[in-house]
């Protein structure tokens, strides 16, 4: 089963995003796994900048001194790095080429860098690379905030949640601007670090159909059933999980703090795949300044994800409706016309309003055990996925 028309053609994949999101660290495992299946090339732009720097009068380019260099020199070094990578890719016979670089930096405004912004990649660089796929790699804001606090190079920058949300938005905008110009030949997707490495490998290989798993998140504590279902789906599908970005937890914690009143700082506990992590002493005011951006990004991101998958699968774990699930179903059906399948593990049928948007034959409900219903859904998806209208794109 292959979902890509160009499955046998060389893929050039640009993995970018805001810095400090763990992109390069995350890429290590997928690269090693991919290497067992296909010939893969990896190009870390900063490493190429370090190689090019001496010929531009900078003998030793490091993370520490990179923004001490005159901006025009730095841009020439960066341009050389992209040119060298493009040249190597042209000459190589790898099946998959992966280029990794941050999209945009925020720096302390001074001298040449008064705007406080430095582009890690420009539209012209992307045009030069001519990627078949672009991945905006992100992590949730709390983990990035923590990472930034630990980074000695960003000491004194006092990056707030709003800065980080803005930063993330700038990275997405660069990619979006490029894909607007290259439509219809460039595909892009936002990918969250919290996804298992195998999901990323499957995404890069492009052989399995992609599905978006929609489920109740608000007011839910236990996601073990979702994890189990996701694991079953993952053997045949690239399963995109909207809750791999934990920004929802900021919204929930903020709302709870408002309900209780009085608190000026809050702690937020987030459950990651590798266990819980507590983020302490976050000023409520900092969240308040970022909350509109965070809430908007949750919706925008999930809708973009739906547009970039072949089908949406709803795991309707509660008899109560969910605004999020309903909005995702409506978006899937009305805006991007993706097939929607629903696992509704109750004897009764879902609301007629829900059924208005989802074909009856795509809903599995009944009083069998949840695990049996999950297996039934996986089999149904495997049976019908070849007929999904965007398979082949």
């Amino acid at each position, binding site marked *: 089963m292959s979902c890509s028309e160009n499955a046998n053609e060389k893929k050039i994949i640009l993995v970018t995003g805001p810095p400090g999101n763990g992109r390069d660290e995350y890429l290590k495992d997928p690269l090693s796994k991919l290497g067992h299946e296909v010939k893969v090339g990896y190009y870390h732009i900063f490493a190429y900048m370090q190689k090019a720097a001496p010929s531009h009068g900078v003998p030793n380019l490091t993370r520490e001194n990179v923004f001490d260099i005159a901006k025009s020199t730095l841009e020439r070094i960066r341009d050389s790095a992209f040119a060298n990578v493009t040249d190597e890719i042209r000459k190589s016979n790898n099946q998959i080429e992966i280029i990794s670089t941050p999209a945009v930096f925020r720096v302390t405004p001074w001298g040449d860098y008064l705007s406080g912004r430095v582009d890690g990649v420009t539209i012209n660089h992307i045009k030069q690379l001519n990627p078949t796929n672009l991945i905006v790699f992100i992590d949730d804001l709390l983990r990035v905030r923590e990472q930034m606090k630990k980074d000695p190079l960003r000491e004194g920058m006092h990056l707030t949640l709003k800065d980080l949300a803005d930063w993330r938005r700038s990275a997405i905008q660069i990619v*979006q601007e490029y894909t*607007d*110009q290259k439509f219809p030949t460039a595909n892009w997707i936002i990918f969250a670090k919290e996804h298992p490495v195998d999901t990323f490998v499957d995404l890069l290989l492009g052989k399995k159909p992609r599905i978006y798993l929609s489920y109740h998140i608000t007011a839910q504590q236990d996601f073990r059933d979702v994890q189990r279902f996701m694991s079953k789906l993952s053997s045949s599908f690239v399963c995109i999980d909207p809750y791999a970005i934990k920004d929802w937890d900021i919204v929930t914690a903020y709302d709870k703090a408002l309900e209780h009143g009085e608190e000026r700082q809050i702690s937020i506990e987030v459950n990651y795949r590798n266990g819980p992590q507590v983020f302490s002493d976050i000023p409520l005011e900092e969240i308040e300044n970022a909350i509109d951006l965070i809430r908007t990004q949750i919706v925008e991101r999930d809708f973009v994800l739906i547009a970039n998958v072949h089908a949406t699968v709803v795991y309707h774990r509660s008899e109560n409706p969910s605004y999020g699930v309903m909005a995702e179903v409506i978006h899937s059906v009305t805006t991007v*016309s993706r097939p929607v399948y629903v696992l509704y593990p109750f004897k009764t049928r879902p609301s007629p309003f829900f059924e208005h948007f989802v074909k009856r034959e795509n809903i599995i409900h009944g009083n069998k055990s949840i695990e049996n219903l999950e297996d039934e859904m996986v089999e149904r998806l495997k049976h019908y996925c070849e007929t999904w209208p965007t398979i082949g794109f």
Partner: protein
Amino acid sequence: MKIEEQIVRLSKDIVDKEIISISKAIDVEADRDIIEKAMKIATDFLNANSLTEPITLARASFYIAIKDSQRLTQEGIKLLIHNNGKTNRWWMHLAPLVERHSRGR
């Protein structure tokens, strides 16, 4: 009249108005072939997918109708994204699907 039929009829009106509006913005208003082709592509898709959002469908159908004529510039794509000041990039995700449908898959 069934609710689906009502939705299709209302959507069809919105689709036609949007296609006319885009044709003016891109300055192909006089080219009836492109406009009629776009409207037919949209109607066929709407008949099979009654719930499709009409503005998105109109822009996707217009793109398919005009793309082979060499008259769609990069500026034209921008106008398709931002027509009437209403930004909509979703049509880019819908277009391949509408095109496949119009070719009978």
